[in-house]
């Protein structure tokens, strides 16, 4: 249906037609007409953040926990530049977002007008695509195209920059029906020959492993389901990247835990010694591969990815399948059932024997304490006490993030929101705001570090305003722990600028915002304190005082391969494990 309306009204109409329910934003001069249109409607809920970076992370949390496209609205100039970190974060982690930015009127573009910046220029490398809309006639098409581009193929953030005069102009609105991009046609179905070849390789493998990533989550719940079926049908072990946690149940016996720099011994060793890696929606990131010339030296590789540019980028693979994970896995399962490959049971048994031996090493073990809360213990207790709840976890970046990935067990997709590719401190609170907007009744916890949390703490105010009872669970080790760890291991214990000096009183801070503050520093009181947090109907900042000296293990140190890991109980030898050359590698 086509209707006459202003550009600003078209923005709202298009968001509504695209099924947007929540819009995260911050007003300013060049988006006032759109804010006026928001004022006059009731379908879309606007969430007023406290910083535009927060708007983008909130939209990411919303998108990642629902599978929908996140929507953001910010003003020109500083509004747009503040959004850049969030956009880059979303690009790295393939999160679908539509970010609308205001722009100065078209006749002022290029004149260094007040709050003008080259938004499409600045955001070109940190979006999947962007548009500057110079004519009202183009606006409806671009609005709908933007959603299409954001969510199809490998998802990502897009920016639509709309000058103020275009927002005021009147034109004909057209709905999303039959909107097709001129050129953009991502490949969804995998090539059948490649799929048959892959199934044959999988059937013949002796030491196979599934290596899965965020692509499985992005592909939707069906992909997780199909992955489970295929892994069960084969009986093979499976590991996941940070981004892929939850796609396969962590509880299951075939799951070896996360792989990579802080992954488990069994996952990394199984990768190292495997003869076939089945990579599903992961991208051989450098945190995963470690030393490239020693990466999985005996393995053939199958790579399923919707983005052809991820294939053969870092690691040469033997069988590439370009397509959507769910579609490809569905075809694979069908071929598997048709051909019924005869697995070498004896070889598989021997393989599991090896894996069990690595598991027996209990690589995540740490020295417990009655006096001081160990951060790992805090996560374990948090998990035990929340697992009966409908829980969503976001994180900041640092040691606490890795401990959360290691010790919190995710059994479902879309429950784990973390900044993987960009590693953005300050992601967790706004992401939790976004998740809680989407799931008002659920328990949403940001597992945080005391340093990270101060980067976007102002979003606590947003949480209070919208009565979002998010829980900010700070593992307060008084250090930028991950930085301190590297300095301890690689820079002779010279803790340059990594001590969290002059911290606020987090309990009082929570109260100042209108939330609730809880502090705990005794292991014996932890459970009761966590229970108090869970029961609290308000936003909570939980200041969990933990051992400041704890390091995150296992760890693949710089310049080392998957079979050269460090463990927590070998702390004394670390100086000797990392040689001079390794120290250079930081």
């Amino acid at each position: 249906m086509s209707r006459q309306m202003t550009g600003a009204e078209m923005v709202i109409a298009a968001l509504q037609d695209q099924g947007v329910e929540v819009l995260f934003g911050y007003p300013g001069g060049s988006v006032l007409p759109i804010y006026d249109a928001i004022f006059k409607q009731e379908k879309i809920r606007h969430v007023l953040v406290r910083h535009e970076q927060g708007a983008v992370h909130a939209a990411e949390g919303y998108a990642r926990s629902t599978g929908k496209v996140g929507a953001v609205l910010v003003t020109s100039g500083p509004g747009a530049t503040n959004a850049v970190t969030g956009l880059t974060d979303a690009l790295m982690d393939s999160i679908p977002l539509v970010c609308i930015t205001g722009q100065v009127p078209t006749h002022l573009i290029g004149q260094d007008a007040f709050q003008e910046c080259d938004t499409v220029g600045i955001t070109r490398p940190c979006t999947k695509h962007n548009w500057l809309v110079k004519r009202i006639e183009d606006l409806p098409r671009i609005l709908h195209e933007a959603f299409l581009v954001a969510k199809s193929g490998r998802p990502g953030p897009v920016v639509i920059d709309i000058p103020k005069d275009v927002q005021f102009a009147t034109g004909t609105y057209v709905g999303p029906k039959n909107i097709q991009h001129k050129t953009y046609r991502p490949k969804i179905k995998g090539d059948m020959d490649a799929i048959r070849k892959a199934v044959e390789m999988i059937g013949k493998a002796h030491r196979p492993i599934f290596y899965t990533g965020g692509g499985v989550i992005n592909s939707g719940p069906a992909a997780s389901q199909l992955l489970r079926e295929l892994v069960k049908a084969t009986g093979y072990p499976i590991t996941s990247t940070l981004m892929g946690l939850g796609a396969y149940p962590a509880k299951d016996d075939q799951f070896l835990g996360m792989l990579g720099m802080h992954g488990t011994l069994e996952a990394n060793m199984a990768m190292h010694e495997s003869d076939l890696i089945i990579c599903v929606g992961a991208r051989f990131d450098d945190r995963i591969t470690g030393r490239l010339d020693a990466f999985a030296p005996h393995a053939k590789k199958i790579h399923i990815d919707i983005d052809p540019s991820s294939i053969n980028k870092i690691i040469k693979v033997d069988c590439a399948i370009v397509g959507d994970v769910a579609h490809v896995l569905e075809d694979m399962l069908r071929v598997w059932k048709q051909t019924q490959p005869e697995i070498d049971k004896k070889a598989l048994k021997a393989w599991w024997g090896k894996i069990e031996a690595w598991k027996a090493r209990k690589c995540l073990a740490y020295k417990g304490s009655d006096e001081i809360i160990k951060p790992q213990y805090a996560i374990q207790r948090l998990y035990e006490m929340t697992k009966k709840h409908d829980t969503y976890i976001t994180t900041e970046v640092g040691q606490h993030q890795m401990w959360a990935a290691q010790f919190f067990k995710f059994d479902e997709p879309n429950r784990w929101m973390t900044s993987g590719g960009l590693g953005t401190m300050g992601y967790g609170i706004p992401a939790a705001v976004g998740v809680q907007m989407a799931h008002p009744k659920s328990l949403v916890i940001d597992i945080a570090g005391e340093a990270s949390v101060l980067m976007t703490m102002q979003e606590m105010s947003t949480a209070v305003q919208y009565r979002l009872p998010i829980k900010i669970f700070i593992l307060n080790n008084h250090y930028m722990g991950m930085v301190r760890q590297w300095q301890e291991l690689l820079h002779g214990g010279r803790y340059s600028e990594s001590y969290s000096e002059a911290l606020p009183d987090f309990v009082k801070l929570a109260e100042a915002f209108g939330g609730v503050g809880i502090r705990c520093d005794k292991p014996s009181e932890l459970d009761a304190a966590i229970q108090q947090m869970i029961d609290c109907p308000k936003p909570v900042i939980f200041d969990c005082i933990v051992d400041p000296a704890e390091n995150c293990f296992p760890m693949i140190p710089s310049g080392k391969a998957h079979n050269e890991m460090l463990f927590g109980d070998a702390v004394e030898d670390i100086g000797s494990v990392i040689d001079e050359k390794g120290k250079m590698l930081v």
Partner: protein
Amino acid sequence: MNTSHYPSQHIFQTPETHTLSVIVDNEPGVLARVVGLFSGRGYNIESLTVSETEHEAHLSRITIVTTGTPMVIEQIKNQLARLVPVHRVVDLTVTGRVLARELALIKVKGKGEARVEALRLADAFRARVVDANTESFVFELTGKSDKIDEFVGLMGPLGLVEYSRTGVAAISRGPDAM
């Protein structure tokens, strides 16, 4: 040596030069996207030409000559294809049927024997004189890039003032479109 905590380069392949033809929507910013991709990801551009080729369909053809290892060339093609306004990427070098030409305008100043010699060489290279006076010539020369290199080299001692080149335009041989 590797001086970061990222993995060092591990595949050593010999770089190759490839000529890519890229069909794109002729819309604002598309060239910036292509150029930004090359600079952002550290790829080489040896030559780049762009012009609208199908006015009705709003299509432009970008011809890029680039150098990289086979893995990097594959990446370049995949990354280009990933840009939303890119319709097609064809590696003309791989097809083995590439016709590539460049045009150059070359200004030469001189008197006496040098001037005569420059004219004689221009004739041998089939360069056209497009501007002339008693002191200087401007030659127009079309051909493969190395032919232009050679001609410019020869003009050096004969009074070369400056020259301008278009960069490579390329197309495949035979009756079919790419």
